[in-house]
């Protein structure tokens, strides 16, 4: 599992240290929740930009990783931002021969897992990411996501079942697009 900042750590000005230590971990979490590493990178960077803009009492952030995660997920989920990012990528950025969101570096099993995760509803993806990638207990996932513990448990249960089904289907007949 990925290392985590202990809960309750307070950050006043040390965002650079948090950036150095937590950026990649946050990208991984948001990538699974949002379904795209490219969007996750954009979203996490945007979260840090906003963190640097906090002033006064809001500049003291309990659980900075949790704060950054929530902001990044909100950003990633924003359709508005997605459209703008997509437009910018389409208009200004030449095609990336490496396809940073593609199979580069991922084994077949991880590719299949990531593809299956993308086909789950957001809530289930997020719960699975926080519970299994970040190794957060169910109670902490509930706090992080802002839903009752029972809802988290239900999402984990449904997500596990769906993953098992999707991976089983993929193993037999290849992936199919979730609609």
């Amino acid at each position, binding site marked *: 599992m990925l290392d985590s900042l202990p809960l309750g750590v307070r950050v006043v000005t040390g965002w650079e240290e948090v950036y150095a230590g937590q950026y990649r971990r946050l990208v991984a979490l948001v990538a699974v929740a949002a379904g795209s590493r490219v969007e996750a990178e954009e979203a996490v960077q945007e979260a840090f930009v906003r963190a640097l803009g906090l002033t006064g009492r809001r500049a003291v952030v309990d659980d900075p990783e949790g704060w950054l995660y929530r902001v990044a997920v909100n950003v990633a989920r924003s*359709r508005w931002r997605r459209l703008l990012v997509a437009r910018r990528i389409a208009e200004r950025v030449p095609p990336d021969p490496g396809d940073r969101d593609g199979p580069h570096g991922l084994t077949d099993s991880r590719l299949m897992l990531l593809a299956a995760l993308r086909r789950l509803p957001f809530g289930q993806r997020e719960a699975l990411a926080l519970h299994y*990638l970040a190794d957060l207990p169910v109670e902490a996932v509930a706090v992080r996501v802002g839903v009752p513990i029972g809802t988290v448990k239900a999402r984990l249960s449904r997500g596990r079942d769906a993953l098992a089904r999707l991976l089983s289907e993929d193993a037999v007949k290849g992936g199919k697009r979730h609609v």
Partner: protein
Amino acid sequence: MSDLDFAGLGEQLAADAYQPSFGSIRDRRRRRTQRWAVGAATLAVVVTLGSVAATGAGRGRGDRPAGPPGPVAPPPVGVMSVRASPSGTLYAVVQRCVADCSAAAPPVEYSLLRSTDLGTVWTTVGPLDALGPALSSGPFGGGPGSLIVVSDSVMWRFGDDAARSSVDGGRTWRPSTVGTIDGGSSLGVAGGIVWLSQNGQVTVAGGGDAFTPTAAQPPGDGPLSLSAISADRVVVERAGGHTSGSGRWYVTSDRGADWAPFGDPCAGTTHPGTSGAYLSATPDGGLWAVCMPDGAGQTGVDVATSLDGGVTWQPHAAGPGGDDLLPMSTTVAWRGGTDSDIYRTTDRGAHWIDVAPVGQFQRDGAPQDTKAFFVATAVDADTALYVNHSPGMPAALIHLTRDGGHTWTTHPVRL
């Protein structure tokens, strides 16, 4: 899950992530700050949940009806929350880009809008300030940051660690210190009173006053899930410290002066003792309980109804659909939620009919990845509407039913 390489996937994604220098992050912050210094906008948090390409450019504030579209291309509008007051008036929180709208994170401003004709015409009540990254809302407009409409005069907005209240219909707002609003907090509104549980404590606010702890607190410790029944009656479920359903539920009928045990409303469902349950009251004295699974192997949402104040309950499996329930009477209720269509029952939850396919607007990855805000109004049990937008549409769409979801009329609206 042990056979799935979550750890390896996470480590691989982290290793492959492109990480620009922290200096570039600082530069982006600096450029944005400079833009604000000379620009028109003051709010920086872009947390749009539904992006609506609608008008609003140059429109003054006040109670003027929305005018016809102008010749200038309008900036994007995001719908943040849509709520109905007990009188049936609709209120919406929207954000608008005010400058440099093609930027990745343009400055935005928030406004409160009002409609007294079920969404046909919207007027601007006044500006709103941002309340932090928690400014978001679920399909039914609940959750931290959303607009809480107690009446056409009294309203609340909640952010991460702050709240605003208004006693003049949203024209002016004053801050209220409420502490951190997080997943352990829950809100309830009934009889003009707002109840809030935080850090295992029940607090209450009348009108736009500050929240104060009730005279007594429910026994035990741990997070509280709160369900407001009336101005004086609240039922809470205390999580943690208990292993069975009995004794976890408590009720007060005197606004928190005394608390007594309350029977588990989910006892007769397939989720007895669940930690994921809440109650809703109807004007005609009915109680509805939503019982969600909280253990491995459990699936499906159950509902239970009570006609005697929670002494006895009639359970039903709710079937497909979400776990956000809006009961209108002892027999009629609407139900939806994340990724869910809107369902309706007219027989106390025994049968549910899919009346609106809004789930397609909410599923991630769907072609129309749109937020749909559903509002059941107090006009009558058959009247409800939802607001949605799809990319490329010139305005938000209002879908209105006056016959319980059998037929819907749709019209575009400029917010």
